[in-house]
């Protein structure tokens, strides 16, 4: 008996038990759709993270005041101390003392309310130098970035992030307009290109597109005010290449310890982090979620598989006479096994195809409801189909061998 004919027999077998086959298929369907959505959520989250990391610029170290090693003594929390100064930034820029460092961008930042006409936006205002643009790996959508002259002359100019720009000037061109920050009219000279990081990101405070960049001197002298005008919120340091990142780290660490007169490295009053690692730590939460969802999906897939096995075992018991008859008429054990395996596989494949369709529909419509990005992955779809087929076969093997090993006389004798 050819494969095609066994297939036909198998499909007829499945069709002749419509409702039961449908319920079995439903189990597989839910499992497969679950896997596709879980994988889609995971991939959506990780692609969002990747774009965020790209937005931060590559090979970048961020130096923040305060210590993260708070194992001994009383230490200020991360970022609370005011230990970083412009002198530190200047020292780090020295190609002699720090040969692996390519560029340094000192940053002062504060959250301020921006007003443009009747529109207001609360955003992170960052005072920095022209080096910020290449260090962060950013580009301009229009206009220009802050220049050396702006730093020297403390001019009230600013560059808006894409999100902030659209919030304040939804209809008009922001370049040339004025934004009021703490009573200082700041002229917008440029707009940053969007990083592509999702605007619906849950961590909107760290959205790299929601910002206003001003000259560091303007910020210190005219906008932020405060006690120490020399104090920095952070220093962004770009290494020459990703291979030089470790070298840059050691040079920065060594230089700052020296400048701050600290001999014991464990008592450092600053912290150097790689932005990428910081993000990676945040994303481990996303990964846990993905694993959890994937685990639930996998369990439901196994339950679906058990459903296939169950219906096939019932089917074998129920069709004992049919099996006996087929054997009496000349069906070899191999042909019987094949027939039942194909019936199980048909259940698996039909469930798989419907599951992929349901999964893709979920991926298409869920983001609108839950606000998280979900990617459609062809790999996941193909993989899910393969899994469904494998489940059909795997959970069909035992019932099929049971059918195949029935003695024809025992099978015929059963009333």
């Amino acid at each position, binding site marked *: 008996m050819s494969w095609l004919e066994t297939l036909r027999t198998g499909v007829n077998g499945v069709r002749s038990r419509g409702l039961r086959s449908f319920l079995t298929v439903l189990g597989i369907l839910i499992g497969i759709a679950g896997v596709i959505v879980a994988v889609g959520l995971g991939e959506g989250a990780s692609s969002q993270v990747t774009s965020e990391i790209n937005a931060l610029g590559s090979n970048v170290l961020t130096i923040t005041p305060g210590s993260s090693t708070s194992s001994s003594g009383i230490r200020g929390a991360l970022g609370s101390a005011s230990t970083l100064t412009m002198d530190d930034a200047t020292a780090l820029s020295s190609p002699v003392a720090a040969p692996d460092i390519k560029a340094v961008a000192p940053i002062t930042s504060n959250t301020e309310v921006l007003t443009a006409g009747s529109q207001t936006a609360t955003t992170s205002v960052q005072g920095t130098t022209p080096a910020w643009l290449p260090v962060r790996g950013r580009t301009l959508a229009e206009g220009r970035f802050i220049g050396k002259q702006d730093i020297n002359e403390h001019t009230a100019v600013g560059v808006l992030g894409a999100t902030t720009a659209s919030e304040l000037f939804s209809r008009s061109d922001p370049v040339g307009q004025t934004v009021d920050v703490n009573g200082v009219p700041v002229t917008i000279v440029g707009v940053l290109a969007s990083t592509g990081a999702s605007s619906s990101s849950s961590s909107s405070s760290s959205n790299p597109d929601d910002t206003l960049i001003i000259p560091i001197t303007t910020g210190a002298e005219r906008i932020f005010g405060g006690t120490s005008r020399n104090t920095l919120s952070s220093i962004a340091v770009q290494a020459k290449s990703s291979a030089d990142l470790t070298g840059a780290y050691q040079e920065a660490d060594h230089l700052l310890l020296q400048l701050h007169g600290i001999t014991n490295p464990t008592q450092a009053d600053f912290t150097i982090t790689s932005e990428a690692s910081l993000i990676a730590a945040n994303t481990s939460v996303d990964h846990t979620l993905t694993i959890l969802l994937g685990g639930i999906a996998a369990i439901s897939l196994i339950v679906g598989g058990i459903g296939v096995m169950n219906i096939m075992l019932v089917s074998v018991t129920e069709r004992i006479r049919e099996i006996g*008859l087929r054997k009496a*008429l*000349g069906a070899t054990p191999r042909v019987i096994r094949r027939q039942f395996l194909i019936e199980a596989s048909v259940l698996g494949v039909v469930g798989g195809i419907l599951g992929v369709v349901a999964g893709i529909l979920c991926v298409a419509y869920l983001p609108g409801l839950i606000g998280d990005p979900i990617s459609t992955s062809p790999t996941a779809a193909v993989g899910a189909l393969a899994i469904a087929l494998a489940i059909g076969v795997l959970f069909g093997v035992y019932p099929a061998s049971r059918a195949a090993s029935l003695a024809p*006389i025992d099978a015929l004798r059963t009333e």
Partner: protein
Amino acid sequence: MTMTPPLGTPPVAPEREAVIELENVTKVYRTGSLSVAALRGVTLSINEGEYVAIIGPSGSGKSTLMHILGCLDIPTSGGYQLAGEDVSRMSETALAEVRNRRIGFVFQQFNLLPSMTAWQNVELPLSYAGVPRRERKERALEALARVGLAGRVQHRPGELSGGQQQRVAVARALVTEPDLILADEPTGNLDSVSAADVLGLMGDLYAAGRTLVLITHDVEVASAANRVVGIRDGLLTENDTRYLESVR
């Protein structure tokens, strides 16, 4: 131009070959420590074209003998040659192939698949033999015509009477042109009219030169055959008139 045999010489009788040769066949069933001998040394030879009834009461071993004759089971000891082929020590797969090629079964319960039409039921053994689809359907329709069901080929078993269902089963037994047609209580589930009908059909097959073995407990059914073999306590009694008398 034809060769005419000289007058007075009797026509050469076609050589009748033995289809079934059982040689001292035993079958012992073991359940735990208990062993029951269902067949205790059966020797039987059935020639091509014979119509043999095997008659015995329940528990006589006739079902066991039917299973062995039908290659559904193998003997514990002894030899069985079916159409010259030793089938007494075959593997299950080889037996399936022998059943498909050499034996046509007719069962008491008809054993038709309810989801299939009459012709689909009839073509089933041909599909296991690997016969192409078109030829299968042709042969199935032909076999159904031979049992007088040409007008019922698209009916499912549920739409047919008991007698008609058994005719479909006979057509299924015929369709592979087997060496032996083995009927196990073929009239057991039928009313007397349908029973006579099916027995008449088997008589037609005998007349057409088929080899038939009929297994039954019913003397009247057995009398339709041209040779009756009795079975009792696992032993055969050839033309056992005493047994026939005793049950009559």
